[in-house]
């Protein structure tokens, strides 16, 4: 169970530190070797431009919840520009009672997913945590195309450090945000507390 106060000072210091240029280059090479196309950019603005250039006009796009995507304007581009078919607003206004099956199909296999990761190792292992698991399926296999926008602070040395980043930094931070947003995520808090 988390304290509800967010990550500790130690975790904040360790896991919000930006990776070096050398680490970023090593990661880019590792990801390219795994068949993942990588663009290294210097700013959020540039990342936004790259995402725009990758998404075809009219594409069906699911944007995962991500502070990074919100802050740099990618979420705004997807949901409000009119250039794409954003799935998130469409799903939100669907009738859960009558359209549950259609909602499951739409969210499980979108043409494009734009999201992020919670950690990535220098050797290119991507670590993603999802409370319900709904974000995992499309990224791993359901989506036609996946774009991940990853900040330099998410690069970690190895898998164990990546898992620590999730349990000691991401989850307490998320827990804090969730309590502020809706205060109704006790099930998740207890589930993660037991695992952690």
């Amino acid at each position, binding site marked *: 169970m988390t304290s509800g106060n967010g990550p500790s000072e130690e975790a904040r210091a360790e896991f919000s530190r930006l990776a070096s240029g050398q680490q970023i280059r090593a990661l880019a090479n590792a990801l390219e070797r795994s068949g993942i196309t990588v663009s290294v950019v210097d700013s959020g603005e540039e990342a936004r431009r790259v995402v725009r250039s990758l998404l075809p006009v009219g594409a069906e796009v699911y944007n995962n919840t991500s502070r990074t995507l919100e802050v740099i304007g990618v979420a705004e581009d997807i949901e*409000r520009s009119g250039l794409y078919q954003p799935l998130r607003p469409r799903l939100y206004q669907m009738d859960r009672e009558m359209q549950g099956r259609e909602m499951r199909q739409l969210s499980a296999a979108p043409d494009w997913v734009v999201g992020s990761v919670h950690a990535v190792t220098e050797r290119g292992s991507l670590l993603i945590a999802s409370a319900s698991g709904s974000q995992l399926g499309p990224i791993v296999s359901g989506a036609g195309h996946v774009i991940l926008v990853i900040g330099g602070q998410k690069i970690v040395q190895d898998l164990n450090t990546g898992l620590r980043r999730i349990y000691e930094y991401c989850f307490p931070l*998320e827990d804090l945000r969730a309590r502020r947003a809706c205060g109704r995520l006790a099930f998740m808090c207890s589930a993660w507390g037991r695992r952690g």
Partner: protein
Amino acid sequence: MSMIDYDARPVTPQIVLVGHRASAVGYSIRDFLSRNAVPYEWVDVDDTERVAGLLTVQEANPDQLPVCILPNGMRLAPATLEGVAAGLGMVSAPTLSEYDLTIVGAGPAGLAAAVYAASEGLRVVAIESVAPGGQAGTTSMIENYLGFPQGISGSELATRAAAQARRFGAEVLLARRLADITSEGPGYVACLSDGTTVRSRAMLLASGVEWRRLEVPGIDELLGSGVYYGAGPSEAVTCTGCRVAIVGGGNSAGQAVIRFSRYAAHVTLLVRGSSLEASMSQYLISQLRKLGNVEVRTNTEVVDVEADARLRALMVSSRGSVTRLLADALFVCIGGVPRTTGAAQVGLALDRAGYVRTGAAVSSSAGALDGWPLSRQPLPLETNLPGLFAAGDVRSGSIKRCAAAIGEGSMAVALVHQRLAEIGGE
């Protein structure tokens, strides 16, 4: 990245509407947004705590309601459907000075025609006053449409069809009604309610039908305040725990019952006829019979309403006796009246019920071909005006089924090609 998907709600700011639940304008905006798949938050003006955080004292003035706060922060007070549509960037101008085909109405027939015409390279524009999908777009679940063994909701079918039409290059002009059609050379000019004009070499009227009005004293004053025409998808959640009455014996009424039974405490279906079998698909009848909170009353008509600021009860007549039926909301899904406003004055030949005559029905109608300028007879879906076609529910003799309308819309495109070849340039 967040670990929590927050119920897939949008992450960017959404529209907020503040007003009285019993507001006809508020309902028209909710209906428009809901049918266009635009998420919004409705805040009832009686929710004083929430309203205080959203509106100034001046904005909360009854004269200023409903208030719409757009995602960019712009505030519309009082809000109108047209203002909201424009504020959201949903009102676009036609991009071309002339099209090959103008389609009036983006229901199943119009969307099918838009998809086929655009996919075959024609320059196409569709005009739609509310939302793609027409009446079928409000249907909760179409279970007998070919190719969808588990059924498909009307809104999903409409969303997919509109996306398909746009992908092929068709334009869809929303939130404006057809005001007038005039002929210009071999083509036509459509004048829209906002003054926009659209020129085209051929035209397809696929405007469908609107719900027949219930002739009951006092009912018009309650529109949007407990009385609704159609299945009212935007109202389903707000009927949670309520007593709902639905009038009608057709598939639309049956679909509405199934939708509202998921939310309402009790649903009463009022049917004028003696049974459902003559007017409703068997699969719907079977589903209705399994619903524990649904009552079907045949041989029953609404004769009066009881209301204060909103609907409270209905007086219903059955076999000579009148009883009181408590109802928080009444949804009227009876029959259809052909939607020819703005089109009929160009000189279309109509049948006695007001539906548009086409093909052989034109030729066999006395006087309908007076002034017909061509040596050939009208093509199968062509009206008494060359190059002006009709398809779907608005057409005289059409089968009132979604699949039939889609078939007619597709077929119309082949006939449009013939007409365009006739006048040259194709």
